[in-house]
């Protein structure tokens, strides 16, 4: 039964980080909608502006504030919240709720915790308590001991009896700081790190179950102890590889019913023992030799796995968990998929679901790619098929890593052996190559500890490749290949024919995909839910809705660096706008974490890869009228030109800006020509087809220059080089230059201010959504830069110039929809860097900061409305500051340098918003996870050019009570100018005191280090930066950044800020 509350709060999970991605936008949004349905007044808090849940419509009051206990308390008090949902915002929200409960604040405020209770959190998170609880109910756990020091860890291994052992830090995200130790040296190393990461300085030393199979159960339970399993999941990768890093399938394919029931029964016992009311995830290790199992972990909340389980089964876990949290029981909650049954049942599925993680290694060339107990992936894809082969082939091509399926990587036998033993992201491809070279499935299974069942499925794919290659491509063979999930493109590649020909031939044979429904019940009941996947068979269930106009929005695929949740936000807004206009909104996407793949969002959802073939298939099946390619980031933009070609002569149109104009913006030559014509300045540039040519161009432009390959989009492999030697190194190590693959060389505007502008245009008028000034100088990727809206240093004249340029470009590109422009300002001149006629990363940020939903408006414009219809024109001033700060994965990815460069490195973003600039800065920095010190030591070492400018910063820090350490040059300068400092040695001098030693001693709490530009930023100060990352010491590499941070520190000391909801900002 529903309980009475006045106002309920949902806490989000903050920025996207490794281990916490869009799944909590999905769960938090579902939770809010679920509460609204029940008539509760809701308050939502999240620092991440790129989420759907921070939309004004999601909750009655939305706060974009840092997820910090003191701020949450302020909001609770201000709003009169009397209940907080604990389980919807991942580990972040759970930790906040634990803190609120432990500190007695909840009691003081008279607030109930809904959903997972503090004791359940403790029992599942505290390893020792978990072990005790499991032993009490007779469920087996690995031998283990919790330790708080390295010495205790060594003793714990003696108790366990043998290496390897697992090290698991308590209270961290995605296994941060954990690892496997094969000997004492490794044990010491990993424990030191793990202890540092653990919120309670505790790690667990555990018996190794490496090589055992790994199974997961998603469980729900209500207050009457009704408990059900939503889904079970089989990890193809054995124990030892984090489940977030594993390829998994659902349901479990290799468990007998008896063993499935053993694990199911155990899961139900566990959720009962932990007294969880809501959802939880239970992980098992299973010994294939003798059927023994061990309970490995329980997540007492919705998780990434539960998002996957929701999408895999159609069962809305977060929605139901929310209803349970407010007092309903499972048999009282209708199953909205069938409309006739209830939430109290176990989904039956009639397909195979595969999840494959998406790793960021394409962006980070120096990172250690090995997979283990620490998560490194940023996102994932899900695919659905009626055979395992079909699901895995669809999954691989959904990853957008440049493969068409199980492509060969041309591994040698040695490389294969290495990959199979020490898995990286490429292991499945190494398996393919091994099978191509005649390795037996048994041998591969033995090395990888995969069940040979799956290896043989991979072998089926390789055998099909051979059959296709040896031809002829008969109707029967083609049909078999399609049943196995081979794409037209893959088949075409195997027999060296064009994809379009295969498509034609396939269609002429009548081999066209059917669409099957995801309905929670394996077709037992008639379902209304429009959630489909493609397969091959004898009947299709996607009914054509002929009355309405239909528009397909192409989604953004998996979350990776450079393509985050922002694009999902845009897609969802596109859907909402279409629906507001009475148009049927159809989505194609393959990311199980997101809101866009919630079956409740669009009119019809197609869970499929986003390739030309798959998109065309949906267009044909649905008889789509228009396609939106602007919203899914590179994923959809890359398809625009090909789609337009393929759709020529049909009724289906690409909506908005024409693909040809999109191409003008992407093609350097065409774009430069246009800028020249418009009289817009661009940094001097050239194209080099060999090292010599590149060198000549660079010398004539003058170093430093910005270099990048011409054939890769999105800032990948973009670098600033300061000398010919560095240019040489670049072409030797990073990018091969040749006639076919030239490199582009741009003048790098040093110390220029960079600006991002987002614009909506209807082809005639232009509305400037927002002008954002970067805090960092140009040269730092705009996805990483700290941005301020509105500009805080630009003159009226410059802003006028910017607006003028925007108008010119928008009209020249005949933009209908969104346009993002990046500009640089140097010596009072504005330069064009690039223009992208599509949704940008900053659309949700601006929309939240100004209260104008740009993506919705742009969608309606694509349908034919004009800006006038919305009363929008020119540029709107706002009376507050919104600051976007980025979060970086450096902690999780050893080997990646933390210095910001033209190549994007951040995984997510936060927004700090306030009337006062410094408070907005404070909120942004804190929300992004920076531990702003209120006192202590600051280490300053700056290049000569920055010495003068660092002086006021140093003075203010001194005033704030900081003690200043500086290297000789900086120190001398500061002292000469009246700032007292302690001189320390440079790291390279190998003398004490130096920064590294002081950092380790805890004497340095803030670092200002501007790299010397002559030596190349990447190599300078690397050690200090790495240590700062590990010790979580804020590290500022620009004077502007330091300036902003000092303002924020003052705010932190004074604690004189307030919280405001979005409504209050926008006076809605």
């Amino acid at each position, binding site marked *: 039964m529903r309980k009475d509350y006045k106002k309920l709060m949902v806490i989000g999970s903050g920025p996207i980080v490794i281990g916490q991605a869009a799944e909590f936008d999905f769960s938090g949004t579902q939770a809010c909608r679920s509460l609204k349905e029940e008539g509760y007044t809701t308050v939502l808090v999240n620092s991440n502006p790129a989420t759907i849940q921070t939309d004004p419509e999601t909750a009655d009051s939305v706060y974009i504030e840092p997820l910090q206990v003191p701020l949450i308390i302020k909001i609770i008090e201000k709003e009169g919240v009397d209940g907080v949902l604990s389980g919807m915002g991942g580990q972040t929200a759970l930790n906040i709720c634990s803190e609120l409960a432990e500190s007695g604040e909840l009691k003081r405020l008279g607030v109930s915790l809904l959903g997972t209770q503090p004791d359940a959190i403790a029992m599942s998170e505290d390893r020792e308590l978990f072990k005790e609880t499991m032993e009490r109910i007779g469920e087996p756990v690995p031998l283990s001991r919790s330790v708080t020091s390295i010495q205790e860890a060594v003793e714990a291994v003696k108790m366990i009896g043998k290496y390897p052992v697992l090290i698991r830090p308590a209270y961290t995200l995605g296994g941060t700081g954990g690892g496997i130790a094969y000997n004492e040296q490794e044990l010491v190393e990993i424990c030191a790190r793990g202890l540092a990461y653990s919120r309670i300085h505790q790690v667990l030393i555990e018996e190794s179950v490496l090589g055992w199979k790994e199974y997961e159960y998603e469980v729900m339970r209500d207050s*009457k*102890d*009704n408990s*059900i*399993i939503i889904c079970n999941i089989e990890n193809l990768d054995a124990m030892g590889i984090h489940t977030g890093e594993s390829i998994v399938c659902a*349901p*479990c*394919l*290799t*468990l*007998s*019913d*008896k063993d*499935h*029931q053993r694990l*199911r*029964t155990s899961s*139900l016992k566990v959720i009962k023992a932990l007294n969880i009311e809501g959802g939880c995830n239970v992980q098992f290790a299973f010994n*294939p030799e003798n059927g023994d199992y061990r309970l490995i972990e329980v997540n007492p909340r919705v998780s990434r796995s539960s998002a996957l389980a929701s999408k895999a089964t159609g069962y809305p876990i977060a929605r139901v968990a929310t209803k349970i949290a407010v007092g309903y*029981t*499972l*048999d009282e909650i209708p199953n909205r998929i069938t409309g*006739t*049954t*209830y939430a*109290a*049942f*176990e*989904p*039956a*599925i*009639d*397909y*195979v679901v595969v999840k494959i993680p998406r790793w960021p290694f394409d962006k980070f060339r120096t990172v250690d790619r090995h997979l283990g107990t620490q998560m490194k992936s940023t996102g994932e894809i899900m695919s659905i098929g*009626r*055979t*395992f082969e079909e699901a895995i082939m669809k999954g691989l091509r959904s990853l957008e890593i440049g493969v068409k399926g199980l492509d060969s990587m041309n591994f040698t036998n040695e490389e294969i052996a290495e990959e199979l033993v020490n898995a990286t992201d490429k292991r499945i491809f190494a398996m393919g190559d091994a099978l191509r070279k005649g390795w037996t499935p048994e041998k591969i299974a033995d090395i990888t500890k995969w*069940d*040979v*069942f799956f290896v*043989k499925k991979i072998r089926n794919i390789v055998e099909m490749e051979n059959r296709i290659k040896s031809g002829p491509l008969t109707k029967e063979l083609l049909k078999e290949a399609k049943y196995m999930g081979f794409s037209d493109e893959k088949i075409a590649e195997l027999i060296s024919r064009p994809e379009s020909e295969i498509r034609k031939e396939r269609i002429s044979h009548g081999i066209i995909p*059917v669409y*099957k429904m995801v309905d929670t*019940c*394996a*077709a*037992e*009941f*008639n379902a209304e839910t429009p959630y489909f996947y493609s397969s091959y*068979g*004898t*009947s299709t*269930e996607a009914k054509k809705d002929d009355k309405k106009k239909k528009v397909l929005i192409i989604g953004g695929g998996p979350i990776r660096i450079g393509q985050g949740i922002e694009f999902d936000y845009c897609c969802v807004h596109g859907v909402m706008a279409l629906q507001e206009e009475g148009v049927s909104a159809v989505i194609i996407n393959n990311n199980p974490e997101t809101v866009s793949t919630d079956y409740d969002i669009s009119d019809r959802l197609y869970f499929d890869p986003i390739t030309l073939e798959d998109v065309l298939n949906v267009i044909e099946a649905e008889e789509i009228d228009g396609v939106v390619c602007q919203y899914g980031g590179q994923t959809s933009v890359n398809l625009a030109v090909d789609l337009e070609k393929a759709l020529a002569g049909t009724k289906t149109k690409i909506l908005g800006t024409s693909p040809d104009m999109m191409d003008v913006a992407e093609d350097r030559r065409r774009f430069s020509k246009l800028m020249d014509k418009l009289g817009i300045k661009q940094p001097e540039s050239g194209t080099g087809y060999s090292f010599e040519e590149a060198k000549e161009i660079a010398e004539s432009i003058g170093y430093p220059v910005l270099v990048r390959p011409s054939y890769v989009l999105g800032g990948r492999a973009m670098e600033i080089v300061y000398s010919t030697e560095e240019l040489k190194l670049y072409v030797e190590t990073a990018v091969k230059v040749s006639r076919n693959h030239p490199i582009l060389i741009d003048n790098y505007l040093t110390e220029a201010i960079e600006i991002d502008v987002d614009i909506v245009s209807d082809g005639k008028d232009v509305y400037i959504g927002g002008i954002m000034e970067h805090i960092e100088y140009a040269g730092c990727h705009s996805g990483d830069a700290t941005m301020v809206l509105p500009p805080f240093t630009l003159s009226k004249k410059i802003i006028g110039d910017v607006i003028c340029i925007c108008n010119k470009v928008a009209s020249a590109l005949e933009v209908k929809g969104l346009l993002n422009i990046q500009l640089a300002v140097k010596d009072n001149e504005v330069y064009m860097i690039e223009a992208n006629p599509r949704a940008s990363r900053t659309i949700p940020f601006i929309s939240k900061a100004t209260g104008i939903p740009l993506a919705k408006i742009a969608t309606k414009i694509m349908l034919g409305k004009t800006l006038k219809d919305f009363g929008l024109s020119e540029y709107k001033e706002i009376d507050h500051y919104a600051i976007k700060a980025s979060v970086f994965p450096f902690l999780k990815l050893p080997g990646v340098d933390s210095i910001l460069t033209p190549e994007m490195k951040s995984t997510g973003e936060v927004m700090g918003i306030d009337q006062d600039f410094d408070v907005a800065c404070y909120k942004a920095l804190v929300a992004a996870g920076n531990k702003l010190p209120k006192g202590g030591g600051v280490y300053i070492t700056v290049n000569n050019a920055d010495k003068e400018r660092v002086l006021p910063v140093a003075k203010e820090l001194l005033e704030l009570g900081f003690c200043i350490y500086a290297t000789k040059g900086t120190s001398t300068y500061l002292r000469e100018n009246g700032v007292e400092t302690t001189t320390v040695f440079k790291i390279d001098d190998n003398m004490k005191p130096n920064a590294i030693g002081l950092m380790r001693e805890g004497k340095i709490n803030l670092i200002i280090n501007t790299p010397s530009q002559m030596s190349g930023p990447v190599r300078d100060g690397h050690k200090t930066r790495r240590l700062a990352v590990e010790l979580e010491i804020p590290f500022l590499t620009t004077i502007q950044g330091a300036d902003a941070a000092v303002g924020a520190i003052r705010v932190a000391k004074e604690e004189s800020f307030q919280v405001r909801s979005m409504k209050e900002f926008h006076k809605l």
Partner: protein
Amino acid sequence: MAKSYLVLEDGSVFEGEPFGHRAPATGEVVFSTGMSGYQESLTDPSFRGQILVMTYPLIGNYGTNDDYCQSEQVHTRGLVVREYCKEPSPMYGGHTIDDFLKHHKVPGISGIDTRDLVIRIRTKGTFKGAITEDKEGIEELIKKLQRMPSPSESNLVEEVSSKKIEKYNFGKEHCVGLLDCGEKSGIVRDLSKWFNVTVFPYNTPADVIVDHKVKGILLSNGPGDPSHPAILKTTARTVADLSVQMPMFGICLGSQIVGVAMGGKTYKMKFGHRGSNQPVKYRGKVFITSQNHGFAVDENSLEGKDLIADQINVNDGTVEGLRHRDLPLFTSQYHPEASPGPWDTSFLFDEFAKAAKGGRR
């Protein structure tokens, strides 16, 4: 590649490939939504006379293993799958379902769009159908199917019930009887935790059972129509007679027979309940149950009778369990012995054991 056909009485023909035993078969085409437990289902005597469609598209993934058999035979007349696994996981010994069906001389057909088929069954109800490799004979076969009586019109229980009284000693103090209408071995397994078990043929009269001094009687699952004349004459009568003499527990068909014996009526469902995920509400709580039945007790027919439908299906409100107002007699339409399916309701055996140990009321 050889072709095989699944033919339905409404004239639908699905093309696929044969596996298992190569022979034609006819039967009532039913589907099960269980995602695991194919071997338990194939050997469940309740499937007698039926061609089983598995909604899960990959069947046979973990192979077959003697431990999972619910009887010594495969009772389904055929098996319809999207894909059968030729190379199963070796975790349980690695015999294939193909070999298993060959050994038991039951044909299978694979490559069928089972979801398409299931939607037709869901929409129109269960069909009579056939598996054949004779393409030319299909038209004739359809006519034959239309004329063919439903398998449940024959006395299927007779085909699966034990022919003589058998005693199983598990070293326990007390003995209970099992009236065998087609029992699954899981039932004996669960009873053996408490009792020695004496198995009686379905048509054993009450006095014979009483003579064996059993402390209670369990009425097993089984195939076919609970209101079949052969059952009304024998089992139902035995049940009526025994109910006043000893604690009684009916499972599945056993539950329906209890309903009939106490004056209730049963009916054939559109396509029944077959799977491992059926929610049942009992004493205010929901349990996930394993089910396999095509007939059900009509709750309205119990009005004025001594039976109460105290367990109800959460999805469709059908009767899932009966309880006598006065006597120690209760039933479950579902399978507390699982095999396949969840173990959540094994407490019913505890309840039966308690009643049986308590002796007569």
